[in-house]
């Protein structure tokens, strides 16, 4: 199975041009009127607790920043608050305190209806176990998202982009784990989101398949200029990110900026 496809050749010319234009715009958007660099994603003093009889402080004042078009990786052990942080950034959970800003919008101030709008237009999700709808075909799983997007990309082009055009009428059960995750990526990017949130996207895959998926994500980042924030246990993946956040016990214990980005195909573990 060849996952390292140069899918740009399969994307229609007009789509390619659109994406290139967006990339240029994205670079410009990282600066304000005075040319000062502004952050695409920033969280400040983010707190979250759960009360299950015992109060558990899951996030204890988390702050992080990412520029537009960057790939960020959050590393940390189980229970460190990675998923909670990602859920709050993705607008599927609410913080108790602190702020989250995405592309200049303060997510933490949005009401439920505005959060739905934010999720449907601005954020793409990729899950560890793919979360495909089992009784919909591959193409229909992608349409789940394009159906509610204002300017969705074409489903067939997305299928070509992830190398699954010939399997568009298959059901998820008929695909391998890697293929299912590629459908999940196609579904996430079909609305051309500004932010792609990936929760352990390779957690259920073997090394070879994982490389393919990560490579695809890297290319999505390059081609679409999509900012990607990825949760992983696997520190080897950190090499493909510009910025790495290490979380421990609900706090960002360390932030590292990689000067050299490793292509996904060369990641080893």
């Amino acid at each position, binding site marked *: 199975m060849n996952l390292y496809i140069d899918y740009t050749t399969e994307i229609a010319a007009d789509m390619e041009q659109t994406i290139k234009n967006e990339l240029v715009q994205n670079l410009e958007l990282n600066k304000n009127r005075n040319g000062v660099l502004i952050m695409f994603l920033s969280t400040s003093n983010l707190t979250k607790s759960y009360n299950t009889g015992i109060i558990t402080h899951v996030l204890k004042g988390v702050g992080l920043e990412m520029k537009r078009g960057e790939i960020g990786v959050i590393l940390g052990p189980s229970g460190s608050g990675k998923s909670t942080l990602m859920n709050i950034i993705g607008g599927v959970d609410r913080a108790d305190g602190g702020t989250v800003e995405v592309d200049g919008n303060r997510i933490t101030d949005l009401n439920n209806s505005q959060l739905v709008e934010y999720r449907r237009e601005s954020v793409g999700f990729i*899950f560890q*176990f*793919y979360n495909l709808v089992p009784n919909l075909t591959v193409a*229909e799983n992608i349409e*789940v998202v394009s159906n509610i997007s204002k300017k969705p990309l074409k489903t067939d082009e997305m299928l070509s982009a992830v190398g699954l055009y010939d399997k568009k009428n298959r059901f998820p*059960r008929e695909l391998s784990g890697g293929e299912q995750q590629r459908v999940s990526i196609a579904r996430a990017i079909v609305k051309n989101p500004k932010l792609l949130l990936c929760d352990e996207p390779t957690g259920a895959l073997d090394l070879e398949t994982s490389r393919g998926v990560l490579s695809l994500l890297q290319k999505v980042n390059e081609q679409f200029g999509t900012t990607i924030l990825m949760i992983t246990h696997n520190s080897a993946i950190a090499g493909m990110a510009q910025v790495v956040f290490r979380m421990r016990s609900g706090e960002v214990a360390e932030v590292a900026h990689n000067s050299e980005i490793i292509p996904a195909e060369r990641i080893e573990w």
Partner: protein
Amino acid sequence: MVLRKRVWRIIKENKGRYIGIVILILLGSFYFTAATGVANNLEKMVVGFAEEYRQEDLTFSTDKSIEDIAALEDESGALIEAYRQYDIKLPDGELRLLSLSAKINIPAVLSGRGLENPGDILLDPYFSQTHGLNIGGEIELNGKTFNIVGTMAVPNYVFILKNLYDVLPTSGFGIGIVSSADIEAFPEVVTVYSAYFEDRENINGQTSKLHGLLSEKGYSLSEWMVAGNNKRVSMPWANISSMKSMSFPVATVFFLLSCIIVAVMIMRIVKSDGVVIGTLYAQGYRRRELTRHFMAIPVLLSGVGGFAGTLLALPGVRPVVNSMLIYYILPDKGITFSPLNLVLAVLIPVAFISLSSFLFIRKILKKTAVELMKGDEQKAKVNFIEATLRLDRLKFNTKFRIREQVRSIPRLLFLVLGVSAASMILLFGFTFNYSMDEVNRGALERYVYPLEYNFKEVQNLQDRSIPKGAEPYNASRAYPEGRESVEFYLVGMETDSVGLKMKDLGGDQLPRDQVNITYPLASRLKLKEGDTISFVNKLDGKSYSLIIDGIVEAYGEQFVFMPLEEFNRITGHPPGSYRTVLSSHEIDFDESQLSGVMDARDPEAFEDLNMSTTLIVASVTALAVLIAVIIIFLVTSLMIDESRNTISLLKVLGYRGNELARLILNSSTPAVFIGYWLGLPLMLAFGNILYGYVAETINMVIPMIVNPLYVLISFIIIFAVYEITKWLCGRKLAKISMSEALKAGTE
């Protein structure tokens, strides 16, 4: 076994759904117990009364008094009794006085005491009640005062019809019994005979023998009615037979619906427990033990539903029987229940539902521990239909809804059949109501001349001419050869008659100088224009044949019309004979010569007094709505449950509440639509079987007339129920959290 605790937990998790299933089973057992209970108790009363108080096998009238009844009894082997009757007009009704019988149709005193003194009278309880008369009170009849000493029932007036051929009781009409001496105080009393055959075998043969003997002795019969065709006697049998015949099939529909939904749910539970079952197998559990564990749910549900339905029906039988005893005047023998029926009401659903569930779960429990522990059973499988469907050209929302529906074929089947059952019940209630209205309306609308005067004896135009604006008719009861249960009126009318409307099926006037048959009778006998109808005249017992020239549009009426002179000729009446006069205006006939007058100028007086069809419609509407709510709720909540992960995921992906509701909840719309329209032919088939049964039992033809307005109203009701149920389930949908998708560890 510790696993037993799980059964309660599983049920508690989805209380609403299990309550819905229990109600469905309960309805089946309730109906079975109530219908068999009412039918058996009514039968017990009817049969007991007929046997104990010697119900007549035959009633007849003759042109002259039978002189030697004892000799006729010896010859015929029948008990024969002459009783006297006299109709007295009252300000708000009419009372028929009957003389006290001793041999046949002996009155049963229901309250108060029997006749002891001159001037004592027993009244039928319904008449007493509607006229505000009490025991100990008095009633004045034609200037003579009677003391009301009690209420009674007589076997030949179980259903109190004024005239033998009436379909429904006449408002304000009732019967009273006085001593023979007291009735003779009224000068115009008439004599009616009743016969009872002591040999209870071959009643028909003995009836024919008696008929022959009377003819031999030169008696002309003006009336001849066997008990089976006498609605005063046979009407309760229509209820008994229809309730008995429908009790099992209707209950079975409920049980089958319950079987499908319980099987679907048990299958889901067992599948989701696949890994656990495999693990338990691995730890040494036997298949039998696990089967018992999973079977506990259907056994429990069906047992509780069956038992509750049976228990609830027990106190319900008495009020239903009481409501029938208002119209059927019978001695109350108390309510008893057949232990066998009670056991069946509980065991049938248990057997049905347990067996179907067992067949479903056996498939999974047969697998090995290793196979089960792989967890394949928990994964959503794509069935053949889903895999075959190619929906590329459709919009996403349409594709999604279709896939939601075909995901579970048993679930879809349950929804379609359930909605069909609810629609069928609803449509049947409305159609029955409308059909009864049409029968009454159609019969009255036939009269151009609204006044019908019926003479006790045959008249002749030479002796008694008829004024302008009126016309003579002659009539006789008859039955097709070999089908005595299909009685009809053979009517002779003048060839220039205008008193009755007579149109063919195309709406064109039919000539009166030919033989015309009403549509319901032609339909029952499968006759068409040009066919020959062979029949037996019930008065002279002779056979006749007529060629049908035209078919009259009619609802329920069973008539053969022919020219009056031809009628008189073939039946041996002198020319100009008639027995009925139809008139456009009131005629001052001598009342003592009339057996009755019908006035069709006031249609409200002919409204259905027997059964409140409004009550029937209200009951069936409530039942249909309840069934529809349960079915739609069960399916929708199951669908929501089966799609929890998808719903949660769609929320994460940015679907709004109303978008999700449209996708998930609206997906059942085509199934509800199909189910509703399937209900219409099913209702017609069911109704035709039931009405055919009623027609054969009591010779009453009820047409199935579907009114498009009621079809529309039923459609609106079913869809209103669907919308309300969706709204209720919408709250369940809203409660599904996004965290379910975020935590999901499946595909």
